[in-house]
């Protein structure tokens, strides 16, 4: 399902035009190709789709949904958590409008 767990921007590499984001403790790189230059900064909350930042979201909304996911993921170990997080991002059907 399109749960779209919010990710927090940890660092931005302007040269590579990419960011490292933290999705519930899982760190990964995401392209900034779809975002206006300079619009994504450290500590912003974003949604990721197949390796790209697709938009920014409101901090308040992000924290609220993260609370729910945290409760779920607290019950999992490290490896399982990272599998589940990556799987959520990678729903092949998310191309639906």
């Amino acid at each position, binding site marked *: 399902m399109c749960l779209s767990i919010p990710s927090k921007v940890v660092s931005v590499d302007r040269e590579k035009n990419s960011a490292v984001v933290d999705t519930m403790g899982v760190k990964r790189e995401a392209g900034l190709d779809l975002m206006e230059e300079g619009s994504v900064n450290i500590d912003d909350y974003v949604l990721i789709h197949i390796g790209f930042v*697709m938009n920014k979201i409101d901090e308040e909304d992000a924290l609220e949904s993260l609370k729910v996911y945290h409760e779920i993921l607290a019950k999992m170990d490290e490896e399982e958590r990272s599998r589940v997080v990556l799987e959520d991002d*990678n729903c092949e059907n998310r*191309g639906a409008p």
Partner: protein
Amino acid sequence: MSELKLKDLYDGFRDPATIRMLAAQIGEEAKALHEPLRIMEVCGGHTHTIMKYGLPQLLPDNIDFIHGPGCPVCIMPKERIDHAIALARMEDTILVTLGDMIRVPGSQSSLAAERAAGRDIRPLYTPMDALKIAKENPDKRVVFFAIGFETTTPMTAALLHAVVTQKVDNLYFHINHVLVPPAIDAIMSDGQAKINAFIGPSHVSVITGAKIYAPLPQKYGTPVVVCGFEPVDVMQGILMAVRQQKEGRAELEIEYSRSVTMEGNVKAQQLIDMYLQPRSHFRWRGIGDIPDSALELRDEFAYLDAEKVFAEVLPTEPIDDHKLCICGTILKGLAKPMECKVFGTACTPNSPLGSCMVSSEGACNAYYRYAGVLG
């Protein structure tokens, strides 16, 4: 269910009390409907939620669901999968694509079978990995079999941008990006479809904006509600559609405003426009040929277009689904999956005869899996 998935865990967070309360409210307000409300859910994600939680059973008889085209994997006609296979069979070629596409059968084979037979076929986590693979294999050609609805298209455009600006010369594109509004038009246009309301998915309108649904209310006099994926969201969306119908309104409304805007991501839309143009027509598995319903590479990038560069190896015959398959009729709301003669017998998720059985978001597949829930 053996494997733990986030979506299963999330089930604990749907609230049965809220769902029941909404159901009661809908039941009450639906009494005032002048005609039955037949709602098409455009996205397979909604089909999934609706079937999984047995929402049809909670709703009054005068509200019915019609399941939409499903997902980008379901609507891929067999001849396009045959293209991918033909490309993968070329000498010194690596075929790369996203996820599920690998399992889906074409007319003779599937990418999975081809991979087992030794072809170099790789699933990608992100399209950008195709660039890495191309750079690491300068003596091979890499073909990216690009799939997806509107939201996945900009990622392909971003890859195209990288290939063009970095002058990578061994990466080609086979573009299968399709557009949903023309498919809805095709379903509605012959006037037979019994659909009088739509619900559209929320998060995923992040790229296109809700505006892609804007023409529907005027054109067909139908309410459109963009809503989230949890059962509570879907029920809320249905209530909004009921109210519109009752009050004689046909409008575009957003149930779930978080991160959905009318405009969407303009930069992403511009990037698409730079590299891709409307394709004069595309055959949708289960629906048929639809004008302007897909994208292709712009003429100036024809040198990257696998369909042009490798035209001689690609089959050109359209291949239809089994003639007993009634997916097209199901999509119009004129039949339910159980009415298909081969449903659950000759046609199952493991050996689908038609598009609606292919992925978990297809209508027949969802009915098959949740048949117990439906009783």
